[in-house]
């Protein structure tokens, strides 16, 4: 097993107050392997990566690199011994040029010949087939290209181990394909790659081996051919997965008062975010969705509905009455809730506790002079922590110390607590493990069966197909079609997005 191993981690332990984040985890990476690290939220993937890259000190265990025991105390140390990381969020400087980003923080000479640097950078970018120029400002590149630049930087540092922490979550399919091509090139050059992702398809497309973690413990290491998907999922969850293909038909349809009536409708709504005016409606108890490629304007549409962007025109009706929404608070008062796409920037208030994050929206609606008592706030928080299974040491824990999926659940809890009539979920399952994903999908259908109207946006089409009964299709910031009933198939969606004739 240790034949050809470049990186070995043995018995790694990491404790946080009240949580065993890692408990005796072993991990082995071989030369030229793409090794997937899988697990649910809070399974310890990110913690393991952070221990490996020196962000967290480990409490026990040993890390061996090419047979030598190494001690990694800081990200700088990790970089020096040849471990490079590309995070989900780009950690480069957007206002510097591509070349500057590639060489920043690792100059050995006092003087820099930037012209030489630029030529070198261009050569490297070309050899890796990355569509960027060395002198271009980084922020003018797409997210995917920025990610590739981050990888190019890592490659140029002669890294032996490359860690990709959910690099694909904000990329569209073509961009993912490009990234995979780059990964395979590096693999051929003998770089060991650790690939953290939630997308099963991608794991089976590029990886050689899979290590599964659960609750901070090692479940096992598998060669990809020996582990069918269903087994992988059940290993991650620690239980057999119930049939996830058809949750929609199980859910009952809402037939109570007001069923079939439009809860919300808008005509020619547009905002300053650059979308073309669009018409839209949602019925009581309906689940519908906006679909389209990344950047097609699907998020901007719901932001316009919620008043998150500056609304520049259009009519909006709620339960038949004309209303005006220009600020989020007005939408909230109308019983509209919006879970934003970007959890970190628009969602969480990082330093505040889980409790404060959960009650925030309801508290704002209740008013400045009517704060909840501590007991009330605790009751709300505890109720939703239990209901959504949020993994946190306590309600007092700052939300920033929770794993991504659990943060998302807190934000979901925040909006469910306001008991909205119309719930907008923009990418609620991004960066979330399979088990929680299904929980959230089921929850959406359950809420709808109780009379809540839900708009669901997701990059994963099959997730949309599983939950939505009607899809609004967008292309180039314009609504180009609407699909419902039998038209809801992968092919039809693709065709409508692509703008073909439907065949």
């Amino acid at each position, binding site marked *: 097993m240790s034949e050809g191993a470049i990186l070995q981690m043995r018995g790694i332990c990491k404790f946080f107050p009240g949580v065993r984040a890692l408990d005796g985890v072993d991990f082995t990476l071989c030369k030229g392997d793409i090794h997937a690290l899988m697990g649910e939220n809070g399974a310890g993937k990110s913690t393991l990566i952070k221990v490996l890259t020196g962000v967290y000190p480990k409490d026990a265990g040993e890390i061996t690199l090419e047979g030598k025991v190494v001690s990694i105390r800081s990200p700088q140390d990790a970089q020096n011994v040849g471990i490079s990381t590309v995070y989900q969020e780009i950690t480069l400087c957007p206002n510097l040029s591509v070349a500057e980003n590639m060489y920043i923080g690792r100059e050995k000479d006092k003087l820099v010949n930037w012209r030489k640097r630029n030529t070198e950078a261009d050569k490297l970018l070309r050899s890796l087939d990355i569509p960027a120029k060395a002198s271009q400002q980084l922020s003018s590149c797409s997210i995917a290209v920025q990610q590739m630049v981050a990888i190019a930087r890592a490659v140029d540092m002669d890294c032996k181990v490359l860690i990709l922490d959910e690099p694909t979550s904000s990329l569209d399919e073509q961009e993912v394909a490009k990234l995979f091509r780059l990964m395979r090139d590096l693999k051929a050059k003998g770089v060991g790659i650790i690939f953290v992702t939630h997308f099963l398809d991608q794991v089976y497309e590029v990886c050689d081996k899979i290590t599964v973690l659960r609750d901070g413990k090692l479940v096992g290491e598998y060669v990809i051919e020996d582990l069918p998907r269903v087994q992988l999922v059940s290993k991650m969850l620690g239980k057999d997965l119930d049939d996830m293909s058809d949750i929609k038909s199980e859910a009952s349809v809402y037939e109570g008062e007001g069923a079939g009536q439009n809860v919300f409708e808008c005509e020619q709504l547009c905002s300053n975010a650059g979308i073309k005016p669009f018409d839209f409606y949602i019925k009581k108890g309906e689940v519908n969705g906006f679909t389209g490629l990344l950047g097609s304007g699907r998020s901007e549409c719901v932001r316009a509905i919620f008043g*998150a962007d500056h609304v520049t025109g259009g009519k909006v009706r709620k339960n038949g009455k004309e209303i005006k929404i220009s600020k*989020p*608070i007005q939408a*909230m008062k109308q019983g509209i809730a919006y879970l934003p796409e970007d959890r970190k920037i628009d969602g969480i208030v*990082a*330093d505040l506790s889980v409790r404060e994050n959960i009650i*925030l929206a309801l508290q*704002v*609606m209740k008013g*400045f002079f009517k704060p909840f008592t501590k007991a009330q706030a605790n009751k709300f928080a505890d109720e939703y922590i239990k209901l959504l299974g949020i993994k946190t040491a306590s309600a007092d824990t700052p939300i920033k110390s929770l794993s991504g999926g659990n943060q998302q659940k807190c934000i979901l809890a925040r909006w469910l607590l306001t008991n909205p009539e119309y719930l907008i979920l923009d990418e609620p399952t991004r960066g979330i493990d399979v088990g929680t994903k299904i929980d959230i999908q089921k929850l959406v259908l359950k809420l709808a069966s109780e009379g809540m109207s839900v708009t669901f946006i997701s990059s994963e089409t099959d997730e949309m197909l599983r939950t939505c009964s009607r899809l609004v299709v967008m292309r180039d910031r314009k609504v180009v079609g609407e699909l419902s009933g039998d038209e809801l198939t992968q092919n039809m969606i693709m065709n409508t997005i692509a703008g073909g004739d439907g065949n």
Partner: protein
Amino acid sequence: MNILKKIVSKQIFIPCAALLLLALFNLINDPSFFKITLGHNSDGDPVLNGYLITILDYGSELAILAIGMTLVTAATGGQDISVGAGIAIAGSVILRVLCGSNSRPTELQTSLIVAFLVAVLVSMAFSAFNGVLVAYFKIQPMVATLILFTAGRSIAAWINNNELPIISADCDKSFSYWGNYIPGIPIPTPVFIAAISVLIIMLVLKFTNLKLYTQSVGINPKSSRLNGLNPEMIKIISFVILGVCVAISGLIKVSRLQTINYSVVAKDIEMDAILAVALGGNALSGGKFNMWASILGAYVIQFLTTTLYKLDVRSDALPAYKAIVVIILVVASAPIVREKIGGFFKKFRSSENKGGAAA
């Protein structure tokens, strides 16, 4: 060990520890530091004397300012450096309204309460101006308030036509009560004013969402907006509250001397107010705050100043000595250092456990 760690990790520990250290130092150096005696002032009224009283008395303005500065820091992630100039303006307004155009009045034009309320309004207006620059024009708070910092004392002088009005005891005796003593009460009046201010802000924090709102706006304005808050308005409100604090301090300052010196009054007090916030362990980059810790921080600074005076440090050398102590305090309260200390305790404990297991 665990309890000790818990205490150390509390935010309020830093100003408390600093206060204790200073107290301990004085106790060893000269126990008479803590002596409080009942004496009589020149009017024959009973007054309490002693260094502790001095600290409480002269720490009042700083404590009041620390309240507003904490809120501004939390909401905007920056500081208002114009509070000293603001105090000059507020004090000048009070004297102007009371004296009219006569700088040596024989009787006051209006009652003090009117003059004070006008000063509060003026002060709030100036602060709102700062707030608008910060909230809507997204100017760095220090840069935005630099304008008033530079211009404020000239504005204050201009309000009184460059004259220095004096309200003598013959004209109105009660004017001096606010910065000194009310006859018959041996405790300085500013102590009461500070106590009432603290009480009010604590009630406001308890019975409104001011804390939650300022903290969320300070941490993540974008997300706050999507939760229905108006980040701009909350930033302005924090400045306006500071404006009220400035006016109150202005009243105390002019009442202490019954006159004003535009270039000297409340000089460098903004730095002490910011220091109070920092000493309280609050992040100057905004976000979470602890109001008690800030207020305590203000008294720590005054304690330090008084201690240095007591040691006969020359007044022009005072800032240098103060700086040394402040550096130590601020470094000790820096999160990095505290983490290290926490880590040290943890190691200590685990080695203790290991020792126990081996035995």
